[in-house]
């Protein structure tokens, strides 16, 4: 049983291309890429402000973990908005407007230098 690509002998196993380590087909059934198969934590909307630091401390900030989280979110977005039974313009417009905002924010520091009207706020 190979555990994924081995770049440097047996010393470095990145786990790329694998299912998550927590995924067990006998318990979880078919694999869905947008699902989190680890131990469930409190949802963000239920977290009180006082518990926020604690909640953030429990998160995993490893680059691979962040990448996987981004992948889960992307898969969930695609599943909801593009794979729907009757998709609409909404998913497409979300992407376009997101790009607009990103592009505007990219040039905002440059724009602010020359287009500010008020000195004090």
């Amino acid at each position: 049983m190979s555990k994924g690509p081995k770049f440097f002998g047996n010393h470095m196993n990145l786990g790329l291309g694998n299912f998550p380590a927590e995924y067990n087909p006998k318990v979880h059934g078919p694999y869905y890429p947008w699902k989190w198969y680890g131990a469930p934590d409190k949802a963000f909307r239920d977290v009180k402000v006082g518990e926020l630091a604690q909640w953030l401390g429990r998160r995993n900030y490893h680059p691979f973990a962040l990448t996987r989280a981004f992948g889960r979110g992307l898969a969930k977005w695609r599943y909801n908005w593009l794979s729907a039974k009757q998709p609409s313009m909404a998913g497409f417009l979300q992407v376009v407007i997101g790009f607009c905002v990103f592009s505007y924010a990219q040039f905002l520091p440059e724009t602010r230098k020359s287009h500010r009207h008020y000195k004090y706020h």
Partner: protein
Amino acid sequence: MLSRVALRAVAQAGKGHATASVAVVPQRNFNDHTRSLDERLKLFKEVTETYYTNPERDVKNFPVETLPDLPPTRMIIFPDSWWANLYPKMGTSGPYVLGLGGLLTLFGKEYILMDHHMSEAYAFAAGTFFLWYKLRDYIVKDTMTTIKETNEANWDAPKAVAKKQYADAIQHMETAIWQEDGQRYLYEAKREGIDLQLEAIYRQRVAEARSEIKKRLDYQLAKETAVKNFEHNYMTRWIIDNVVKGITPEQEKASIAQCLGDLKAIAARQ
């Protein structure tokens, strides 16, 4: 082969160490007919037992997902779940106030600047709304037609074809079974005919044997009769000859005289 290896590995991993991950996604090529039927059924059973009917399966928290409906939206693009999540804290109009207030704050603090590119945003918003308002029905209709046609071409039609093929095959098999039942009677009839032919040949041969035996017996009888007749005739002739030879002239004369005497006596009586 890949998928079977992977499945076996999954089964072994489940037995040994539960944290072992699966590196190979099961390859499911349903058009691969190189496997035998038993192998394919075994694979199907393995997959079903691993993924669906396993006693360890947690169906409540990890159900089998189906194609989703589009999430409800407000203002064309924003998901309704944002309002739903903010409702307990902010009520109905709170999220609108938050969004508008945030936007106005960004404008007021000049984090968003009213530069000459902003007109593009208004034009884009107006054009998008115009297109959405005018073309929505057409696009939905066209999309649904395309989806329907795709489903029809890739799912319903092949299923119907497969159903028809299997129904035809079942019909064919049932006809074959019916014909096979008929073969039993046909076999009996043929067997009876052959029995009749054998009986006829047997009787013919018995008759032939009888006639041949009769011929031989008739020959023997005829031969015996001929021999007997010949012997009889020969003896008779031999005895007569010897008797005739044994008659002397005196005896002949006496006989003739006797005859004459007898004739005279007969004549006298008449």
